[in-house]
């Protein structure tokens, strides 16, 4: 589904990703772990098409298409979804209106007919339940005045509504207490499916207790230096990142 080959990217003055290669098949959940500044969030941003990053080498193929060649909205149309580390507040645009615009824009991109407001309401109501999301949040402006937990739940809610093929979760656990973490993880787990892949980006192993990955990759200084199964996350939790950073340096 997703094939990243030797991806090099950074900001105008600083290379951050220095040759990342990764293959994700449908149905798989991959965790990307790594110390601060290793390039985890840059990887997520580059995949979603965030402006401000420059790709200087490598390729990214998604479902047979050159992902890097597409605008952010086209990527969403193809089925890529990024759950933001810091969800953005948009005063004046209601959550429902926002989601319906997004949902219909994606349908339009795929050549499908738009869904009317009434049908859409009943469609999203069916999605609020399993996230225990207050219906009142739907009529409020997007993320405005939401608590940290509500914002993250709202991200997962959007994911549930838009039903992406590939979900990238960027530090979804940051800023969550244990109850909120459980709620968000339950939401994510409910969305696991044989047709859907997930890329779970996190600094801490904690999240992976709840969202158990099929594969774990460790990103250090812009490269994936180690890959393994879910037990690799536990090892990192126990030993920290120091040993792996040293191994990485020694290996160069």
């Amino acid at each position, binding site marked *: 589904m997703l094939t990243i080959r030797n991806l090099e990217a950074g900001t105008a003055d600083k290379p951050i990703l220095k040759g990342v290669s990764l293959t994700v098949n449908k149905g798989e959940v991959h965790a990307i772990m790594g110390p601060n500044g290793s390039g985890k969030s840059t990887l997520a941003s580059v995949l*979603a*098409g*965030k*402006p401000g990053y420059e790709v200087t080498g490598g390729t990214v193929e998604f479902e047979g298409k050159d992902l890097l060649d597409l*605008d*952010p*909205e086209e*990527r*969403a*149309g193809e089925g890529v*979804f*990024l759950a*933001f580390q810091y*969800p*953005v*507040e*948009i*005063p*004046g*645009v209601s959550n429902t209106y*926002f*989601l319906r*615009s*997004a*949902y219909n*824009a*994606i349908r339009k*991109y795929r050549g499908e007919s738009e869904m009317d407001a009434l049908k859409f309401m009943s469609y999203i109501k069916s999605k609020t339940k399993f996230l225990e999301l207050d219906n009142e949040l739907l009529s409020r*402006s997007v993320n405005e005045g939401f608590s940290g937990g509500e914002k993250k739940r709202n991200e997962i809610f*959007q994911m549930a509504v*838009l039903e992406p093929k590939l979900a990238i979760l960027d530090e979804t656990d940051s800023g969550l207490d244990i109850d909120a973490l459980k709620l968000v993880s339950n939401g994510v787990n409910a969305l696991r499916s044989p047709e859907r892949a997930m890329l779970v980006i996190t600094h801490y192993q904690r999240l992976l207790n709840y969202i158990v990955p099929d594969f774990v990759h460790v990103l250090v200084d812009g490269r994936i230096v180690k890959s393994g199964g879910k037990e690799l996350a536990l090892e990192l939790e126990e030993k920290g990142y120091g040993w792996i950073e040293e191994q990485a340096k020694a290996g160069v």
Partner: protein
Amino acid sequence: MPVDTLDRSRVLSSHFGPLESLLAATGDANLHAWRRANLERFNALGLPTTKDEEFKYFVAPRLNEVKWQLAHGANVYRSHLPKGLISKLETTTLALVNGQIAPELDVLANLPKGVILCGLEEAITNHPELVNQYLGKSATLDGRLGSTNDERFTYLNSAYLADGLFLFVPKSVTLDIPVQLLSVIDAHQGPIAVYPRILIVAEENSEVQIVERHVGINGEYLNVPVTELFVGQGARVEYTRIQTETPEAIHIAGVYASQHGQSVLETHTASFGASASRLDLNIDVLGEYAETWMNGCYVARGEQLVDCHTRLDHRVPNCQSFEVYKGVIDDHGTGVFNGKIFVYEDAQKTDAKQTNQVILLSPTATINTKPQLEIFADDVKCTHGATVGKIRDDALFYMQSRGIPENEARDLLIYAFAAEVIEAIDTPGVTEALEEMLFEKLSK
């Protein structure tokens, strides 16, 4: 050879002579003497230049260049009007075309007993005592605070006072359907100067929702409308004013409201049209425990100039006012906001809030914003804030990442910015109509 500016000022006054006998036929000798006095006051000042403090940023060269003609008649049919309010609103409509009453555009519903909705000329003839009691009483800053008060265009409007629109809502009457006061201008026969006058009286404890619209159909013209609005003791009035003149037009308007005790006045102004537009919204709060809302939304694109001046006189204690003006400026457009709030010495416990927020969509867009609070009482709460920003890139990307195309996301963000103002309107149908107008304006 360039024509002297002073001569050009006289272009507008020069219509008075040929029109005078016609003007004098409406109303009594006092009214006509008042017209003449206003003409003299205008002549003493002439057209403004950017050296006049109140017109510092009002750069409208065509105002001086054009040889404006007397307004001619025009036949405008409903099908000529832009889609929008007139069909959408469950409303009663009274219309002017080129300053003349235009029954073909009227939509008249049954009104409660005692309500008067008719042309101003008719009102002057049939209800002279009522008109005398109110006409010209509100539209003046004589004797008021402020060292730069400038009402020259109101003088000009008063000098040419003839027809217009008149709405009278008697004591304790509630109008269930909104009243649309519509002024349409069609300048297909060359550049004309038009002076519509609107007089609205809401007596004590009455309730009414008013939508005043200025719609341009054709060509270049100068529109100088004046509205007077009396809000009686305990009355509740919602007044929405929507300006969509032609792209060539110049619109210079004065709206004057007098507000009595315990009344609630909500004003919403939307300025979208004209090559250069100016709105002076003046609200004079005369009675205690009155509540005033001033919401405004203005958009300038292309080479447009949109100049919004507001003035609020808190004369008495224990009143509240809330003002939010939002501007969207694109291309080479220029926006001006000047918000004056005078808190008189007696007006203790005044609570006044003023905000002006602007987004600039292009590096060549300009905004001149100036809050101007003059406070002579010591126990008051007055706040003001002005912010100038641009579309937030993070919000744009967030929306795109959810599949919304960039243009659509941009329009939605601009709408969202203005929504605080537009969505505050209670008059049914108006929010939706304005939303549509705003999207259309932004997508051109």
